[in-house]
């Protein structure tokens, strides 16, 4: 198992290098720069700024200097926030995104898996159609629609949660991360429900389920012991893409609910052409994704003995 993890970690190095290089080149080759955008600064100011941040050096020098700093864990200074380094920006904003994402994932699984299992076990009955209709609605009501709708219902009508962001937190009994997490969680829960149903149905038609029935195993035990492990495989496979989706989703919900998370910083950096913050965020995301996917692979191997060998 350790060897497996080590091998996968080795495979990640080239992926990261490619991601960094592509992003770096894209940022540097793009027209416009952090100091050319809105404020019409004098050429001298721009030059001084560029020199300060090292943007006047030849590209290869900049590239290798960046890699060297990266190896030390330094992501460089931010041009949007002159007083902060990229590391500090991430350290300040990521915990917000992490909380939202974790809660969203928990909501998605807590709704999706039971709904999918129920639908599969009671196939072609009301208990199948009802949750599956909800799942279809969940998929067709994307986060940027669902988010504002939830904000209206819970924030403006019921006053259960606030929608103005963490900064202006009124005293509401729903924590400020709840509505964003619910928005994301319902969307991915819909996918999880559909995948769970499909996976369970697939396993329920297998010969070994018949074997279990012939042994006198009752239906509850058949579902829990004989079907669930295999039936959840598609969901486990989906966790990787879902994680990537949660990151994209965080861009949307952090905008809708005005949360100071990393997603919001990334979009802001993209608008402001804050190279080091963009690069830093992308590298950070890449590492995160890579580690998470490794985790998913480990879960996969733990659930399916055939993969382990």
């Amino acid at each position: 198992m350790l060897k497996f993890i080590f091998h996968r970690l080795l495979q990640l190095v080239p992926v990261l290098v490619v991601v960094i290089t592509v992003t770096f080149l894209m940022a540097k080759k793009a027209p416009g720069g952090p100091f050319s955008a809105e404020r019409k600064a004098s050429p001298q100011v721009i030059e001084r700024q560029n020199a300060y941040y090292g943007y006047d050096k030849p590209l290869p020098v900049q590239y290798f200097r960046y890699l060297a700093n990266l190896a030390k864990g330094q992501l460089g200074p931010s041009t949007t926030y002159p007083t902060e380094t990229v590391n500090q920006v991430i350290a300040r904003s990521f915990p917000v995104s992490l909380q939202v994402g974790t809660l969203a994932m928990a909501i998605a699984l807590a709704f999706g898996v039971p709904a999918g299992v129920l639908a599969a076990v009671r196939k072609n009955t009301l208990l199948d159609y009802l949750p599956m209709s909800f799942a279809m609605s969940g998929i067709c009501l994307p986060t940027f629609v669902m988010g504002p709708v939830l904000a209206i219902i819970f924030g403006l009508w019921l006053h259960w949660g606030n929608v103005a962001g963490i900064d202006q937190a009124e005293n509401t009994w729903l924590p400020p991360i709840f509505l964003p997490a619910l928005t994301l969680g319902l969307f991915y829960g819909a996918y999880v429900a559909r995948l769970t149903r499909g996976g369970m149905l697939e396993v329920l038609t297998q010969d070994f389920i018949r074997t279990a029935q012939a042994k006198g195993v009752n239906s509850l035990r058949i579902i829990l012991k004989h079907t669930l492990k295999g039936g959840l495989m598609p969901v486990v496979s989906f966790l990787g893409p879902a994680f990537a989706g949660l990151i994209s989703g965080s861009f949307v919900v952090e905008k809708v609910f005005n949360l100071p998370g990393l997603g919001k910083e990334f979009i802001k950096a993209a608008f402001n052409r804050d190279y080091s913050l963009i690069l830093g965020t992308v590298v950070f995301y890449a590492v995160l994704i890579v580690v998470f996917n490794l985790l998913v692979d480990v879960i996969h191997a733990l659930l399916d003995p055939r993969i382990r060998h």
Partner: protein
Amino acid sequence: MTADAPEITSVAIPPSLDEAQKGTSLWKDAWRRLRRNKLAIIGLINFVLITLFCLIGPYFVPYQSGEQARSLQSCRPMEPIYARIQERKGKIVRTDFIPESKILDENAFITVSKEQRDAGLAQLKRGEPLKAGRYTYQISARKHLLGTDALGRDLLVRMMHGGRISIGVGLAATAVSILIGVVYGAVSGYLGGNLDIVMMRIVDILYTIPFTIFVILLMVFLPPSIFLLFMAIGAVEWLTMARIVRGEISALKHREFVEAAVSLGLGRLHIIFRHLIPNVLGSVIVYSTLTVPQVMLLEAVLSFLGLGVQPPMSSWGVLIDDGAKTIETTPWLLLFPAAIFSLTLFSLNFLGDGLRDALDPKSSKD
């Protein structure tokens, strides 16, 4: 003991020529199954209607998409609108439009008593003109079915034009993804071996990258254009298509008709494009139908974040973004674009599910 007792044999009767000649029966069969699926048919009809609505709808609405009316900001849907006509020497010198919600702010109503105000309003509502100072007020024929936005633009016509962009980008980006996915998958599946392993491993890795980030980077660093938008989206949505095509091709390539083609000395490209790809058409159609809503979703997310379609063009994502900003005061600006967008996604997803059941009954999940 068992070697000398083989299976009970029976002679298979060759299928009648009649059956063998029905070359198109697969498609006929699929169409028959699809027709039975009510949700899928409703989805298909709905999508066609929405597309027609966006394409020819603007010719039936008397407003242009960019047309702004300063005085008609944020009208409610179907709100009565009054014309304020300014005359000098019997000639109309100026006409302004006042929505009902703002008519009481007019001088003619502020400076008079409550009774006079009610009487005047009633008079207007009956369709009779009301003279007040140098202005004549009169109910206008002008109607905004779905209201107007913060700049006084008609929402209905904006939705039609936005739909053109959203659906257009959806279809164009899907076409790009089909092109890349089918070729990549076919090559990987047909050539097989180590190349196949490497190519599929690349797909696996790409799967885990949140492509929204890359599309965002592209949109930020390159001059924004609609062409770039659908190319970028198409370039990231081909992965599943490649996987599906690869799976089918590698199963098909050991079938007799392919071996026959090989033994005839036909080239690899010829075999891939003339013999294999036509056989995976069913799956490609099914998956394309399911890709369109995903692509539209990605476009809408980007536009919502302000990184997709740029003004003066609009798409449903842009409209939803606009609507979400003023959700407290003008919720209809969110409601209608969100509704038509979700309805389109519903239609396409139901159609896709139905097509999957119809074209590939085995893979259907019930």
